[in-house]
């Protein structure tokens, strides 16, 4: 079933993406077609199949020793920030 314009607006809001009025029908069309295409999976019997969590079977999450291996990179990292002051990242006021 094709997605509605409202569904696209809701997905875009969840994904934190601003879409223009011209973009909405484009994504409405292409997302509907993609969902129809991946709908082929519905017809596969997977009742007794466990979802694949990882491409290498048996691999478990590795833990590292609890030791300090890094120094503070604060200043270097903030050089890529659009707006900072006094070592803080600045955003528009959140609480009125």
């Amino acid at each position, binding site marked *: 079933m094709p997605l509605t314009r409202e569904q696209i607006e809701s997905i875009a809001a969840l994904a934190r993406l601003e879409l223009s009025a011209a973009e909405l029908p484009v994504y409405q069309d292409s997302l509907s077609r993609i969902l129809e295409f991946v709908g082929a999976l519905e017809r*596969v019997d997977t009742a007794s199949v466990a979802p694949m969590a990882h*491409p290498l079977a048996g691999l478990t999450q590795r833990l590292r020793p609890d030791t300090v291996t890094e120094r503070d990179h604060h200043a270097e*990292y903030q050089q*890529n*920030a*659009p707006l900072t002051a006094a070592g803080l990242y600045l955003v528009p006021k959140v609480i009125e």
Partner: protein
Amino acid sequence: MSELHHIGLSGAAAGLRARRFSSVELAEAFLGRVERSQDTLNAFISVTRTQALSDAAAADRALAAGTGGALTGVPIAHKDLFCTQGVRTTCGSRMLENFVSPYDATVVAKLKRAGAVMLGKTNMDEFAMGSSNETSYYGPVRNPWDPRLVPGGSSGGSAAAVAARLVPGATATDTGGSIRQPAALCGITGLKPTYGHVSRYGMVAFASSLDQGGVLTTSAADAALMLREMAGFDPNDSTSVEREVPDYVALLGEPIAGLKVGLLKEFFDKGLDAENGQRVREALKVFESLGARLTEVSLPNLPLSVPVYYVVAPAECSSNLARFDGVRYGHRCEQPRDLMDLYRRSRGEGFGAEVKRRIMTGTYVLSAGYYDAYYLKAQRVRQLINADFTRAFASVDVLIGPTTPTPAFAIGAKTSDPITMYLNDIYTIGANLAGLPAVSIPCGFVGKLPVGLQIVGPHFSEARLLAAAHAYQGATDWHTRVPEGFA
């Protein structure tokens, strides 16, 4: 010295050690080619001439002192999603137009330690999402065999650069075919290693359970050398596998007589261009003449690879790309009204159309009420595809088939319909879903356009794949063909 660009990666390393030419001479020769072809091919996003020449001079001093490594003085290029300290890393996106990484990716650091000299960062589909290099914010890359055609993607810049002999080897990444597909369309050798063999640390993430770094070179021998230097365990990558890296160069000569080759039935489907398929069948005859034993193998669930991929990859992409919020790094919109407006407009402006499409697809398939029907279902079917491969490798050593359904297509030909574009990766995605290594090598031409042959093996069978590719390249000369105008 006018033929320096034909020596390949291993040839460059050997020539430098024998002091037949200097690293500065080599860097100058390749940089000249990079700069002269930029208007035609658009293969690079950044060219780092000054740094390259200074690194090459340092390499020459190391070579004179006898302290060089395996790649000392050898020019290479990095796909522009490997973080390079002090050199911007754009990932083909407006989002990262001004991003300068504060650290090197592990792959970059390893190749640096081996002595390689970086000439620049190559163009790519935005965030590696594309099969034609047309989604790059920095413009499409053009195929050196015919500049009206695409080079494939997403590692299109790396592939075009190696095919046009602008650089003897380049790094690349493969999430659904992004090394092998451009290798096929550009007539070069491309290896996607086993998932977990090459560190993902410092590789801008697209789909973390599928992404794998690898190499683009002109020959299997060169791929073996480059892979040996960049693979291996990395504590900074939580899915990196602790395992010794074999000496892939030393293992190139392993005999392939008796190699059990499975002919992938599902790959010779109705979507396969007849002539493209014919070249692959001719290549199979060569493998037979080298002593390989062919049998037909069926992987019945393999045709479901593309639909599985277009649920799993967008899901992981939507999660990974949530980090681009306009706050800590990356593009930020002008005059945000509030925090939500800052997020939405920064992301809306910073991402291109295909990236937005995949983020939204992923957001939808992971959203409440749809997760089971799409994401979990896809991971179950992925398990069936994986089981097909496991079953096949119980009876054959490698699987062989075409890399792509057709040779290179025209720029603009498939941009209007995402599904048509996604189907370019129909033969390559399976290896990503199962985490398997696979190599694409040139196996002839359709008209003037190269055709790729794909060899897929079990986990950590890179040495076997490279030996098979090397044996084929010893019996044929397709990999030595150079596009007209770049000879």
